């Protein structure tokens, strides 16, 4: 950054140095590459499948993004997803309590929000670092879920819920509609509400925020509660799509979500990141599995799946920070 560059940076240069651009190019390249091998990759049904799989990750990533923007982290969302799934199953299943949807779903959402709120309280009032709170919850909630499920899977969710999750409306499952709503809602929060601006302001500079008289507690309580709420929401719209509710639901989901948010360009030091970047990262991370299937890489190569995923994450994150280093270098300490 030379101090005398008063002229505006050319729009093209500005776009190309952004994370979103890099991700979009990567997604495009991969798509072109795989559809060269197998044009069916671009079939509507496949694209629909990929979008459906993106939905739950995208929903929770919206909350996680805000958490990371405030320079905190929440690694308990996977276990929370299992807990809310179990709670939802127990409340709604015809083999269990068989409650009405109008009671069961709000109760599930409240449970998720409550756990998020608890995290927020421990972080703001209890002053326990968020990584520790959520690491504790990661193990504790998983154990608790297994305990209340008592070694059984839960079937018999209301058919209306299952139908909404599988077929949905106008051929698009409920989760996609909900994800779209959540994305819009989060976008509104970020761009159109004082709350969202303050969350970013706080993450950008704690010192400046204090000088402006912003207070920390309500912001952090909100981001954690919001993430909890969204996790419950993702559970409600996505889990009925699966064959059954088992205690392993959401295993390593927290890693996926955090990875998406980080790959999407949200700074782990807070303050910086865009929803578009996160969304693109979700798409990128989700499309790796189907891409490998479509490439028909064969049985032996299948065992390299994790290595390919890991390398891709490493390249996306490390390569990008190296690339971006040149543009910055100022104003952060």
């Amino acid at each position, binding site marked *: *950054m*030379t*101090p*005398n*560059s*008063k002229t*505006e*940076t050319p729009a093209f240069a*500005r776009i190309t140095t952004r994370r979103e651009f890099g991700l979009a190019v990567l997604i495009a390249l991969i798509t072109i590459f795989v559809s060269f091998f197998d044009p069916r990759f671009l079939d509507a049904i496949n694209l629909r499948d990929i979008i459906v799989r993106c939905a739950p990750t995208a929903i929770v990533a919206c909350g996680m993004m805000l958490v990371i923007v405030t320079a905190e982290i929440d690694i308990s969302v996977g276990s929370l997803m299992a807990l809310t799934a179990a709670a939802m199953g127990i409340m709604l299943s015809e083999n269990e309590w068989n409650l009405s949807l109008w009671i069961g779903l709000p109760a599930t959402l409240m449970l998720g929000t409550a756990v998020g709120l608890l995290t927020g309280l421990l972080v703001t009032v209890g002053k326990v670092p968020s990584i520790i709170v959520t690491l504790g919850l990661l193990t504790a909630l998983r154990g608790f879920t297994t305990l209340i499920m008592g070694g059984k899977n839960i079937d018999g969710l209301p058919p209306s819920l299952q139908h909404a999750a599988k077929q949905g409306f106008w051929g698009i499952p409920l989760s996609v509609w909900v994800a779209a709503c959540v994305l819009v809602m989060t976008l*509104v929060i970020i*761009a*159109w*509400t*004082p709350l969202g*601006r*303050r969350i*970013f*302001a706080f*993450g*950008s*500079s704690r*010192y*400046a*925020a*204090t*000088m*402006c*008289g*912003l207070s920390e507690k309500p912001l952090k309580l909100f981001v954690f509660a919001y993430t909890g709420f969204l996790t419950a929401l993702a559970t409600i719209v996505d889990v009925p799509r699966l064959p059954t509710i088992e205690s392993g639901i959401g295993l390593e989901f927290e890693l996926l979500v955090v990875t998406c948010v980080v790959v999407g360009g949200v*700074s782990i030091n807070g*303050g*910086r990141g865009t929803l578009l970047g996160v969304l693109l990262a979700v798409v990128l991370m989700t499309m790796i599995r189907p891409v490998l299937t479509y490439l028909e890489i064969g049985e032996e190569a299948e065992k390299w799946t994790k290595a390919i995923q890991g390398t891709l994450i490493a390249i996306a994150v490390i390569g990008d920070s190296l690339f971006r280093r040149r*543009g*910055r270098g*100022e*104003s*952060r300490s």
Partner: protein
Amino acid sequence: MMIHSQATQSDRLLLRIDRINKAYGGVQALQDVSFDVGRGEVHALCGENGAGKSTLIKLLTGVTRPDSGSLVMNQRALPVGNVRGCEAAGIAVLHQESTAFPDLNAIDNIFVGRELRVAGGLLLARDAMRREAAELLEQLGESIDLTVPLGQLPLAQRQMVSMARAMSCQCQLFIMDEPTASLSAQESQKMLALVKQLKEQGISILYVSHRLEEIFQIADSVTVLRDGQYVATHAVEDLHDRKLIQLMVGRELDELTVRQTVSQSKSDETQKPSTLKVDQLSRQGIFQDVSFSIAPGEIVGMAGLVGAGRSEIARAIFGIDPYDEGTVEVNGQMLPGGSVARAKHVGMAMVPEDRQHEGLVLPMSVQNNLTLANLRDLQDFGWLSQTRERGQAKRLIADLDIRVTDPQLPVETLSGGNQQKVVIGKWLASMPNLLILDEPTRGVDVAAKAQVHRLIRELADEGMATLIISSELSEILTLSDRILVIHQGRIAAEFEGATATQEQLLHAALVGSAS
């Protein structure tokens, strides 16, 4: 004690500061300070570093609260310790350090914390904010890309955005803390024009600056603080720069031109090879062609305005920052750039400007801080010797007269002066032969300051080559054998310590050449 022209009409009076006291730790930052600011005037606040200006600003903006005394604005008491409350009362501030949010764009920076809203306060009035931001910036004569994060904008534009933020809240009193410190001459002129414009709109301005010519250009009246105490308020017509400097420094200038401590004649020592030799040192956009040398036992002062590049030169010499061209030689040994360890190895030591973050590890004990820079000298067969560690800490505490009851206490519990002595002591333990001191007495009380000065002189007499950077001219004049004045990254002038005067230094620092 109050000499200021009492504004008799109460409607002429905007802000009354009445017998304010504030102490940090053991240091009295403000002591019984009282003065008034009139409506629609540009009121300059002057004083050397550590005089208490920043503390006063923090009190006025509600960041901290006074220990005693009252602040009255528009005949109503200011809500002390409440940022929003002070803002609502009509006080806006342009901070010295950037309080901008580097990741937010200009619009958000202007409005964070007091957003314009629609829909019953739920949503942001984005268009209105954008419009208003554009208007504000236009008033300021800036065309800024409103969508770019502020961190990517040049410094001057960031400053303008902060300015716009301050102006957006319909303030009656605008506090500007060193607004031109990091601006070029041209940009500074623009800023000054703005100040005049604001004044015409009937806004009072409390203007803090070290640049005297600016004060004479725009201020109506001047209040001088010294060592936390109120000195005087004068109408600017009654002052000239000499007198103002004298008020700030607190002594007659003539008195100062006579060196208090005359060092031994160095003439025979100039034959000795110099301890430090800097040749053609340059760093793109920061400093250029810096060449000088320091002989053993010599104290070289480095004067200049804040932001002139003094600290950056020192940091580059010490290996904290890289440099592009030139060489640094210590005792005949070439130093590779960018390695503090190497610099330490050849006997260089540096007391950095930012004591709290760079000089000390605050939560660590005094003893551990005192030994941090020469741990390797305290080891027996690879293990730290506790006896020797304790011994060294004890010796340094005694030698430097550090006031601490127990060396195991965290260093953050000490007063500023004692903390500074710890930083110096930490380096003395490694027995350097070249000491760089960056603002060695900033925020240090008078008694401790004198001790530090004596110490520096003693060390030089023992043969230490010393480079002192200070914004306090009296300090430079008192201590230095030779004085370099830095102006916009270059050595603008060189003076003999024995003959230089404050006026000469100021002139060189402001104008860039010797008078």
